[in-house]
């Protein structure tokens, strides 16, 4: 009797094991083929000279050497870094600001503003880029027409080497800020009300409360937003593709656009893979640095 109970239990355990593997099988195989293999393959391809059609030729690390002597690559890295460095802080504090602004309203208004600020995110980057390309049009675009009506100086916007990148950055901000605002609203709402009540009893003003309660308690959200945003903005592509194609005069020639052109326009798979792999290393190191540097202390 006892024996059969244990053996039933044993087969039960076995059944559970088999079921466990069976249930994860599709996703595990898929993740392996389409997530893990590509990382390895990216490195292998980066060691070859390959048009994607002929036989790949092994060239060792030559692609990487070429890369470091390629001024266009350095330029694209510079543009990308510039984009990330300007974009990420503006986005973090901008979306936090929006979250605070929305939270300062009462119920119905709160919902209306939250929905409105979030609305651009539903559009695709392509749709967004087209709308703004129209607004930026130098001659009869909405922005210049407005400036003209106000007797203010007009600009070339996307046609100007100096500000094209900022124009793109603004559109990216417009599209994406509502997403991070929602994350910050969630973070803000997670802070227990009693902290503020206690601080108010102690006579702390609004600003002191913000600096000493809100900011420290939002740190995990801020860290998360910073890491995700950095990863995303290192890879900005769609918007550049539609709005400027890297121009004018490579003023918006971000790294992923260069990778795309090398791989899929000029069919230099090996070289493009080397670039992609370096970008991967840059992104990973940045994420690790951000976690290490900003995660220290201050947790609640």
């Amino acid at each position, binding site marked *: 009797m006892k024996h059969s109970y244990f053996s039933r239990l044993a087969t*039960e355990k076995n059944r*559970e*094991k088999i*079921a466990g593997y069976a*249930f*994860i099988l*599709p*996703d595990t195989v*898929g*993740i392996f*083929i*389409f*997530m*893990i293999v*590509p*990382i390895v*393959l*990216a490195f292998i*391809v980066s060691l070859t000279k390959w048009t994607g059609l002929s036989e790949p030729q092994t060239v060792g690390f030559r692609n990487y050497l070429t890369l470091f002597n390629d001024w266009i690559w350095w330029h694209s890295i510079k543009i990308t870094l510039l984009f990330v460095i300007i974009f990420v802080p503006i986005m973090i504090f901008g979306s936090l600001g929006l979250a605070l602004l*929305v939270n*300062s*309203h009462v119920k119905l*208004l709160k919902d*209306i*503003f939250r929905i*409105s600020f979030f*609305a*651009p995110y*539903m*559009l*695709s*980057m392509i*749709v967004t880029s087209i*709308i703004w390309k*129209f607004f930026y049009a130098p001659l*009869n675009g909405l922005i210049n*027409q*407005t400036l003209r*009506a106000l007797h203010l100086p007009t600009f070339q916007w996307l046609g100007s080497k100096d500000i094209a990148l900022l124009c793109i950055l603004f559109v990216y901000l*417009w599209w994406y800020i*509502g997403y991070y605002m*929602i994350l910050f609203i969630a973070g803000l709402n997670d802070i227990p009300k009693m902290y503020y009540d206690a601080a108010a009893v102690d006579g702390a003003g609004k600003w002191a409360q913000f600096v000493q309660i809100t900011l420290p308690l939002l740190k*995990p*959200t801020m860290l998360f937003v910073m890491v995700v945003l950095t*990863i995303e903005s290192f*890879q900005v*592509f*769609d918007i550049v*593709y*539609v709005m400027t194609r890297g121009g004018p005069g490579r003023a918006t020639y971000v790294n*992923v656009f260069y*990778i*795309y052109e090398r791989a*899929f326009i000029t069919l230099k*798979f090996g070289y493009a*893979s080397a670039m*992609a792999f370096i970008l*991967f290393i840059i*992104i*990973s190191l940045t994420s690790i640095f951000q976690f290490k540097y900003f995660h220290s202390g201050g947790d609640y």
Partner: protein
Amino acid sequence: MKSNISMKYIMVCLISILLLIVFVFPILWMLSSSFKHSDDIFKFPPSLIPANATLENFKYILTSVPFPRYMFNSIFVASTLTAVALIFHSMAGFSFAILRFPGRSIIFSVIIATMMIPFTVRLIPLFIIVRALGWANTYFALIIPPLFHAYGIFLFRQFYLTIPKDLKEAAIIDGCSFFKIWIKIYLPLSRPIIAVLGTIFFLVTYNDFIWPLVIINNPDLKVIQVGLADFVAKRGTNWDIIIAGTAFAAIPTIIIFFFMQRQLVQGIKMTGLKG
């Protein structure tokens, strides 16, 4: 004191309304301009109600350019991907949360770690793999590779962890197979998470650009985002039909925004949780 506070609040309201215009006006402008004649589009000041509305732009978009075909491709790809992804990820999430088997936590950790891989590094290898599989210029290329992502697996698992374990024990005692436990108990309970993830998967796939751009060059399989970008590149000056095409491409996402907004917001909040 009281008037001081309300002055401040008026400022807050003014800023909010100004921002509201900045965020919403471009969208409304796009929708209304798609009904305008070409010379009215650039009129200043812009109006949100077209003076003499026309359907000509849409007629052109729907008949002279294969936009309906692009739209079909996009919706077909996004819905198929969403359905398959929901099934696979629910299965995996169920297994990782409920079932016990050796290697469970290691496999799960590896899967979660893949979330940190930037898409750009995978782009070229994915292209090579998909071509080697003979999937270039097929729907498979658009549906299968992007389907596998740890995000959905993770969220399904988190969701199932909140369901009391007694349910599983009771079902096992009743002699239920694990497949039955999943499909009869856990899947029906998943409705909220399915709505959230389904909305996000659909939206993200529908709006995706770079992958369909590189992997498809058969015009019959083009998705709407790529079709639209090509169209703009080719017809850069015909703003009336470009805006109509843009509005047309945005329609499904606007519908989702209105009907699934709560789920969308929920999904974004959940991404924050893993931080």
